[in-house]
């Protein structure tokens, strides 16, 4: 595995900052002074609110104060200088040069590192453990297809997202599949663990600070993505934006970063490099989710009260992470990672030779989606948003098709259906808080319901709407689910209690949600 040329050549921090400032200078040329002042004022306002919430931003405060003075002065020159200064600072925070040495070391020890990545305080410890998580991870889909396209263009890897452990998991899967490394945006909070920061910053992670809400920052982040994709650097984004709080497979995606693939491709057509950009759906299905208890509780908060960033979940407890990893590592095929059909930036499927395919399977000339009759790129933001919406629909379809139904999901759905039947008219919020006496289910009824759900999954699978890895016998399926649920969480989602089964409605809801969106939820989903 030596094929990491683009990311290996990743430029220095000042070079990237210069490129980002250059993009802004071009953008500001056509902007009226009043709009420029609004833009800077927006950042000043949002950054100062952020400073009020958290302390310790000395350098950043100076940049923002300078921007505030520029707004007060109001001249184009002062405002442009302020934008340059902010963008340079953002660029320096976002970019980390890739280290081939760190990558080489990490990939040699990654099987062990996956278990230790988050908890080790000393890099040398990485070499000590020999657990191989590989046997627990089932990699599905056409990896050769993805590899072939990695040779022909720049890839955007677009995974589903449930856990902070997804990034190291994906890093490991890429390595084991013989795929090149990918740059990925990691939340600034993840860099607070020095060990994580050390590795992530050298393995292609760039910093995303989701607390920065100003337009200048958001645009700079997108510019950065366009910039590195244009330099041929494969990139990973979680298009759901954040971990799925409800446990559902992503149905709505954030279009901002996703759209940068289309922009980078058009830039390459415009500057003559002609380098293609392809989008790879990656669907993660896990029997257990480390942060399930926190995530589902957050998802049950009424609209507006959910936390965009959760800093105090199971992931922030190294001991819990270690316990999760070591226990999950003892489960058979606990994790399924499935590569989907690769797409072009408009959402069409792509063959191994990099050709886009139309609905009839014929090769189509995708460049004509963006070029005019003279072969020049027609820049059109509004059109690109609709194209990106189309791409996002293709991704969502792929996520659902490539999702693997596992025993914990099926048992949870069956249990939830029985709870619903026993409590007609009760909405989800009341059902998860149902009294202890209402949390008991007859084992026989649950097994029968599991058999029903498994049949429905089999029918969906027949139509290629979902994948599954389930034992045929519903009793065996229930036993497997019970055993897996007993592995990690502080509470048991489903647990035998004498002749009956006791359920935890919150956790059952979370795991059942993985099968949401297939029309098998039962009444009142």
């Amino acid at each position, binding site marked *: 595995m030596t094929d990491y040329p683009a990311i290996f050549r990743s430029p220095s921090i000042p070079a990237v900052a210069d490129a980002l400032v250059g993009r802004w200078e071009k953008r500001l040329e056509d902007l009226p002074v009043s709009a420029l002042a609004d833009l800077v004022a927006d950042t000043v306002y949002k950054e100062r609110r952020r400073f009020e919430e958290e302390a310790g931003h000395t350098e950043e405060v100076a940049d923002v104060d300078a921007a505030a003075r520029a707004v007060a002065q109001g001249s184009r020159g002062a405002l442009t200088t302020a934008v340059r200064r902010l963008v340079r600072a953002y660029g320096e925070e976002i970019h980390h040069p890739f280290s081939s040495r760190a990558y080489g070391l990490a990939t040699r020890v990654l099987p062990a590192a996956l278990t230790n990545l988050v908890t080790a305080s000393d890099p040398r410890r990485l070499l000590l453990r020999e657990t191989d998580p590989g046997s627990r991870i089932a990699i599905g889909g056409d990896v050769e297809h993805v590899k072939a396209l990695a040779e022909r263009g720049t890839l955007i890897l677009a995974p589903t997202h449930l856990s902070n452990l997804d990034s190291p998991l994906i890093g490991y899967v890429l390595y084991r599949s013989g795929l090149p490394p990918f740059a990925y945006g990691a939340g600034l909070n993840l860099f607070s663990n020095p060990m994580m920061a050390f590795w992530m910053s050298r393995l292609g992670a760039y910093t995303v600070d989701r607390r920065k809400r100003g337009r200048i920052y958001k645009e700079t982040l997108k510019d950065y993505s366009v910039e590195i994709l244009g330099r041929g650097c494969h990139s990973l984004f979680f298009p759901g934006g954040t971990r799925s709080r409800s446990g559902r497979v992503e149905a709505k995606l954030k279009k901002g970063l996703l759209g940068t693939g289309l922009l980078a491709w058009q830039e390459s057509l415009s500057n003559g490099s002609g380098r293609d950009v392809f989008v790879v759906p990656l669907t993660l299905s896990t029997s257990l989710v480390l942060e399930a208890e926190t995530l589902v509780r957050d998802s049950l908060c009424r609209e507006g009260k959910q936390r965009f960033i959760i800093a105090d979940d199971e992931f922030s407890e190294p001991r819990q992470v270690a316990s999760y990893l070591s226990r999950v590592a003892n489960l058979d095929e606990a994790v399924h990672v499935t590569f989907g059909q690769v797409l072009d930036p*408009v959402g*069409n499927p792509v063959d191994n030779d990099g050709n*886009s395919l*139309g*609905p*009839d399977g014929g090769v*189509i*000339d*995708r*460049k*004509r*989606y963006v*070029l005019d*009759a003279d072969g020049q790129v027609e820049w*059109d933001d*509004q*059109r690109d948003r*609709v*194209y990106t*919406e*189309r791409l996002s629909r293709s991704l969502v379809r792929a996520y659902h098709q490539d999702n693997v139904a596992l025993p914990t999901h099926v048992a949870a759905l069956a249990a939830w259906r029985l709870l619903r039947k026993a409590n007609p008219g009760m909405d989800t919020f009341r059902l998860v808080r149902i009294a202890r006496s209402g949390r008991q289910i007859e084992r026989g009824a649950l097994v029968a319901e599991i058999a029903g759900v498994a049949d429905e999954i089999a029918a969906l699978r027949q139509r290629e709407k979902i994948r599954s890895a389930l034992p045929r016998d519903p009793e065996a399926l229930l036993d497997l689910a019970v055993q897996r649920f007993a592995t990690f969480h502080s509470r048991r989602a489903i647990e035998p209690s004498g002749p009956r089964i006791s359920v935890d409605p919150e956790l059952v809801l979370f795991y059942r949600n993985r099968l949401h969106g297939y029309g098998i939820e039962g009444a009142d989903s």
Partner: protein
Amino acid sequence: MNVGVVGGGPIGQALAALALEANNEVLLAGKRVRRKLPLTEDIGEVGAFADLVMLAVPAWELRRTLTAVRLEPRHRCVLFTRGLDAETGRWLTHLIPALTPCVRVGVLAGPLVAAEVFKGIPTAVVAASEFREVGRMTQEGLHSPRCRVYTSLDPYAVELAATMVGVLAVAVGITDGMGLGVGTRGVVVARGLAEANRLARALDVDPGGLLGLGGLGELFAATSHPKHPAYLDGRALLDGQDRKKSEPIRAAATALAVAKESGVELPLTSAIHAIAHGKLGAQEALRMLMERPAQEGEL
């Protein structure tokens, strides 16, 4: 710009004539066209020629037409076709990217009366697409001193409105044929719009389209024009003629199926469908509609 029109019926010819007036190169695919228009019998030739393709074919011919026209990624395509896709119950505009590589699609609707177009009478249409450039190009394709082209970014609102208007025009044809008064016509139009409004909401579509050129504008023209095809369908039904295959009756069947799935009642549309399929006489349908339980609220 090169504008291709597929569909040699009155609407296709009217669109081709308007595109010529708007100073475009035009090619119309059709047979036996009476007027002097640049014509071809080869639909594929229109695809090769045009930047903007306008399709004015009946809904049930759309699939076959799309195969023949050979749309490509470079095309922008607008549909002047009413109804929902009978096979999927989905929007007809969705059929184009589902069957061809062309994704920049939209819908064209409005009170376009072909005979008036050929007399040079002023008119207006709406071009609705999620892609702003499709609206802009349709303006370039049709806008002239006597044809105004408005644009919208909500194709579904326009598509639904145009679909339901055809059904309502049939209803007005029936009530007129029964010799009922203008008051009854007013009731049919208002209650018809109310049920279209319910369907729009159930499908999460902006009911505002019903008040636009493709909704009220077209409905007013259709019900005031004794030769409007949908209106004539209504009259023909009263005479016992078979109109099951006409565009608005097929549209009614699909709308009812979609409404049933969404839990919405469409009493007027149901009545028209029943009359067209010989399950109810017009008088009986009228009685049943009038005897429905009294209701609170208008919508």
